[in-house]
């Protein structure tokens, strides 16, 4: 029955439309395979579609990415220095103003910031009660002979300061990311006083994350396509170990290739880049404002 070159199709493989497995059923719910596929998909989405405010012709977008990053960092440091709720609210309104002037949708900004905010809120919620922060009672929850539970004014204030600070800082960083494309983030970093080699390694890392994540994604798809029955924990782990090994082997192979390609192009370990620092009027103005805010908050 063989074909010309001896491809010998066995009898069982000739049967079509039979041979299914009634006991085969994958339990419902999300296993780690599905979770990982989702995580990878949402990551790829983030990279492909950074909410698209980088191309808008707004305030931040017009500022040189280097000055933009430095300014945002100064604002962030200012936010850590501030000590009372009112001053942080003022800074926050400035952030909102910058966002609006940069044509960033406030709802999008808020959506990005929300997870960090909610996490922080849950984390510090207990501090409003008197057993953590005693003080003047604002809301009495229970008052008994020996047990007194209330929400204290001091606790509320403390929570407000902490939450507002986190909100301001996360918003600032998010605002920078929303208005700056990935290539510009790396361009901005190059003019910072960090070793160039580190910046090159960073952009290389970013590029190869995408390559490796594709391997990870396909591996999960392949596993899913072949899973017809729930597998044991040990099987899952062995599989995952083999995948992580695959990703690692690929990274090592690729590192070797990249090194050879770099050497072939004349790279000897010393980085030479071309960065001409040329600031425009608006860049000076932006830097001026951010330094001003920074100095002001350092005194308050």
């Amino acid at each position: 029955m063989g074909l010309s070159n001896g491809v010998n199709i066995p009898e069982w493989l000739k049967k079509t439309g039979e041979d299914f497995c009634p006991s085969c059923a994958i339990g419902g719910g999300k296993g780690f395979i599905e979770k990982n596929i989702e995580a990878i998909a949402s990551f790829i989405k983030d990279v492909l579609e950074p909410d698209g405010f980088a191309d808008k012709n707004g305030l931040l977008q017009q500022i040189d990415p280097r000055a933009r990053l430095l300014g945002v960092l100064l604002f962030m440091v200012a936010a850590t220095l501030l000590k009372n709720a009112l001053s942080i609210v003022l800074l926050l309104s400035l952030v909102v103003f910058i966002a609006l002037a940069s044509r960033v949708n406030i709802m999008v900004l808020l959506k990005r910031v929300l997870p960090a905010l909610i996490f922080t809120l849950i984390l510090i919620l207990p501090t409003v009660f008197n057993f953590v922060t005693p003080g003047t009672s604002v809301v009495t929850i229970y008052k008994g002979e020996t047990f007194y539970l209330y929400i204290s004014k001091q606790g509320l204030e403390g929570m407000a300061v902490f939450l507002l600070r986190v909100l301001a800082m996360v918003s600032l960083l998010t605002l920078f990311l929303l208005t700056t494309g990935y290539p510009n983030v790396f361009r901005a970093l190059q003019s910072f006083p960090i070793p160039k080699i580190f910046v090159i390694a960073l952009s290389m890392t970013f590029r190869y994350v995408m390559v490796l994540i594709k391997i990870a994604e396909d591996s999960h798809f392949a596993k899913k396509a072949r899973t017809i029955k729930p597998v044991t924990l040990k099987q899952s782990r062995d599989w995952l170990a083999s995948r992580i090994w695959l990703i690692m082997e690929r990274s090592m192979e690729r590192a070797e290739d990249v090194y050879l390609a770099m050497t072939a192009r004349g790279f000897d370990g010393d980085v030479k880049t071309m960065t001409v620092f040329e600031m425009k009027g608006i860049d000076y103005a932006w830097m001026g404002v951010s330094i001003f805010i920074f100095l002001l908050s350092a005194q308050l």
Partner: protein
Amino acid sequence: MHIPDGYLSPKTCGVLYAAMAPIWYLAARKVQKILQAKQIPLLALGAAFTFVIMMLNIPIPGGSTGHMVGGVVVASVLGPWAAVISLSLALTIQALLFGDGGITTLGANCFNLAFIMPFTGYYTYLVLSAGDASQKRRWIALFVAGYIAMNMAALTTAIQLGIQPYIAHLPDGRPLYFPYQLSVTIPAMGMSHILFFGFIEAIGTAMVVSYILKINKAILYKPETNPLRPLWIGLGILIIFTPVGLLAHGSPWGEWASEELITLIGYVPEGIQRLKGLWTSIMPDYNLPGFDTPRQSAFGYIISAAIGSGLIILIIYLAGKMWKR
């Protein structure tokens, strides 16, 4: 596990950035010596690898899943020094490009996850698998290494968070940054990591590295002649800094007086104090003569800040002109 922006006081952030600086420098030197020019792609790919495995869920008994950090896995492949750099790169990408983790707290996060973790894990593994270890002993050694490394990183994180109320508070003692004291942060971080995250890291480390050992040992990092020597130095430092040492000193658990902590980390605020002094000499007392009432002095603050920023911008502008020529 990543400390977000706003949780740590500027002092703490500064101290930990400062602490990482020599570590990064030393790591770069060591790596250059060992890996030569191959280092950049290798470190970058190592970082990319770390980044990807940090995204993956690992199944654990009971049907639940969790993420691993992978610090010990990376250390066993690239060696602990290169792991410092690769992990730092991965954390930086997470923070700077994806807003995951903080920028101001990056020094702290690198200290915990890119320094404490790979080193404790790597050396724990070396000690436990010393000699001619069987496959089973290696597996156990890796498991324990992952477990200890994760818990040590959690401990340093808990300490960084827990000292905030002592070192940064309002005059009436209310905390300005992370509000919980060590008596809360250490047990909380401890519980979650001793019972859950530690196991994920342990299982993850053991399964991945033992798989590598089985398939292709050659890819693993081979230490220089006497890999355990730096361990003793490291252990010495740890003994000095470890809370157990402080406990032995007589303070009750988590109830350290703030003076003690201030003496512990006091040298840096002093440095900042000196910097502050430098600034005051330029702008005496942040204030201008003739502004004495509160409202006037607020106004004075604004004016002095405006003058200060104007001066700095002028310097930048002139420097830019000169560099450009």
